[in-house]
């Protein structure tokens, strides 16, 4: 459905997010909160899927890229914003400035993606995972020690610019960019790199180039997701972008099925709703209280059984050979 008319899909999705944003104030704040997190997780999971799924590079650095974008965008609106915007700036103008801040955040994260990508291109599998993991730690340490960015306490009092329109419009753009790029003759280069690097090189495909592009674009959208996240929670600290956050995103990609964008979107929705659902269930009656307490346990059991029963991902229905590896 998407592949036939990708541009129509994008347009419809943008209009839909505009409508959502317009009626946001009529919605229950709790639902807005959950939906926002769903949207941000879609951006993160779909962009990580480009690196981990389509291109087959195992990155654990997505939260790191996210934090780069979050801090940059927050610094733009907090520190530069008051100088750039007039005191009584219109909604349109602040919106525009927010967009600029998000873009700068994304580009900074993309630059970080390029820097991490370059030395990592010689590494494969576990080794690459460790390098990206190290990158995440280094970024966290840097933010913890830069006083102007709040040190370990992080930044507080970020403007509440994020709304459903921004989140879902950008989620739609992320899905469009990744899918449109991969579903072209050009994009077969990512999959070829994933499948067999030696054969890809022998077919004239520069795997270095495709890996770099995947890292840069993946990091770009992670950075934008970070910017949205910061202007949604209104406070960011290095702890919010730790190893666990990266793992959460990796899990979404694996549950959705590596390289399967639709599946990864479903997984992002499901895994954002799951803790909420468990919490609600635990609140129904005192006899169900244990569900709330053993949430991490249930989560782990779910993951283990998934890997045993459906290693190709929960939402991967394609009859593809990839499922067998």
């Amino acid at each position, binding site marked *: 459905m998407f592949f036939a008319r990708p541009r129509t899909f994008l347009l419809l999705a943008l209009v839909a997010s505009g409508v959502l944003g317009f009626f946001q104030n009529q919605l229950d704040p709790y639902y807005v909160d959950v939906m926002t997190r769903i949207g941000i997780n879609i951006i993160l999971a779909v962009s990580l899927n480009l690196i981990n799924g389509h291109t087959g590079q195992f990155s654990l650095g997505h939260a790191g890229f996210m934090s780069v974008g979050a801090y940059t965008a927050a610094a733009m609106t907090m520190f530069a914003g008051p100088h750039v915007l007039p005191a009584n700036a219109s909604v349109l103008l602040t919106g525009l400035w927010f967009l600029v801040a998000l873009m700068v955040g994304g580009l900074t994260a993309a630059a970080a993606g390029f820097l991490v990508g370059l030395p990592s291109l010689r590494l494969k599998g576990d080794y690459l995972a460790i390098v990206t993991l190290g990158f995440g730690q280094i970024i966290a340490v840097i933010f913890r020690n830069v006083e102007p960015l709040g040190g370990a306490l992080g930044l507080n009092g970020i403007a509440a610019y994020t709304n459903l329109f921004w989140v879902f419009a950008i989620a739609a753009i992320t899905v469009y960019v990744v899918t449109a790029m991969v*579903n*072209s*003759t050009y994009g*077969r280069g990512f999959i*070829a790199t994933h*499948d067999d690097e030696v*054969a*890809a090189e*022998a077919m004239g495909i520069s795997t270095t180039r495709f890996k770099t592009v995947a890292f840069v674009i993946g990091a770009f959208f992670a950075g934008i997701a970070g910017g949205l996240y910061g202007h949604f929670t209104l406070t960011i600290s290095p702890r919010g972008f730790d190893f666990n956050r990266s793992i959460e995103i990796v899990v979404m990609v694996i549950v959705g099925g590596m390289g399967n964008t639709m599946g990864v979107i479903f997984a992002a929705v499901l895994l954002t709703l799951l803790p909420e659902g468990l919490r609600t269930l635990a609140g129904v009656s005192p006899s169900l209280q244990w569900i709330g307490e053993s949430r991490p346990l249930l989560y782990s059991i779910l993951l283990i059984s998934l890997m045993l029963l459906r290693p190709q991902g929960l939402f991967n229905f394609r009859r593809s050979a990839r499922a067998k590896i």
Partner: protein
Amino acid sequence: MSERLLHLENVSIRFGGLTAVSELNLQIGAHELVGLIGPNGAGKTTVFNLITGVYQPTSGQISFDEKPSARLKPFQLTKHGLARTFQNIRLFASMNVFDNVRAATQLHRARGIREALWRGRSFRKGEAATEAHVMELLAIFHLEKFRDEPAKSLPYGDQRRLEIVRALATRPKLLLLDEPAAGMNPTEKAELAKLIRFLRDKFQIAILLVEHDMPLVMQICERIAVLDYGVKIAEGTPTEIRANPRVIAAYLGEELTDA
């Protein structure tokens, strides 16, 4: 004399104390069908890896299309017109037959990220042209009916042919075939021999066949170079090679006396 496509000049490579290939001279002209043979461990695969840029020669020159090629990476060599197949089939496992070939048309497409994202008319036209080209190639090898099948689900012989189609999609001037007859039965081998001849005539390319299977090489190659312990011990037409005492001693001895 046809133009010179590949030229190895006094090429040697040493791994530690072992000289795997020593002072090798080899030329391949355009549209030539050359065989490279030798017993196990003679250095055939090493030569293959030298030509394709996997190894750098310790000394000597390799030039492709009159340009030095030893420092080029494999994907750059392919861009210059050198394509290869693999001894142990290396198709793109997660892609279907069509996409396996389409991926290899990469280097001749003018459409990059921008066109893929914009999806304008020129992009759609270009993609349609690529599709037509790929289908045409598949049809030549009677693989078009498998278009949407996962590449790895094809029968063994078809997988080998698909690998050749994929290599052809890069529009090579020289095609290197690494033991294409490995694991084939006599009927399949006979078909392969026909196919290789057909390839050369239809696509007007040069072919270097690195092969174990003696009858196959003797049957189709115009010129044969024989390696033993990293040294070229003979070169000539199949008839000359068959009569060469050094070759017989090194390799063919029993087979020929039996026959």
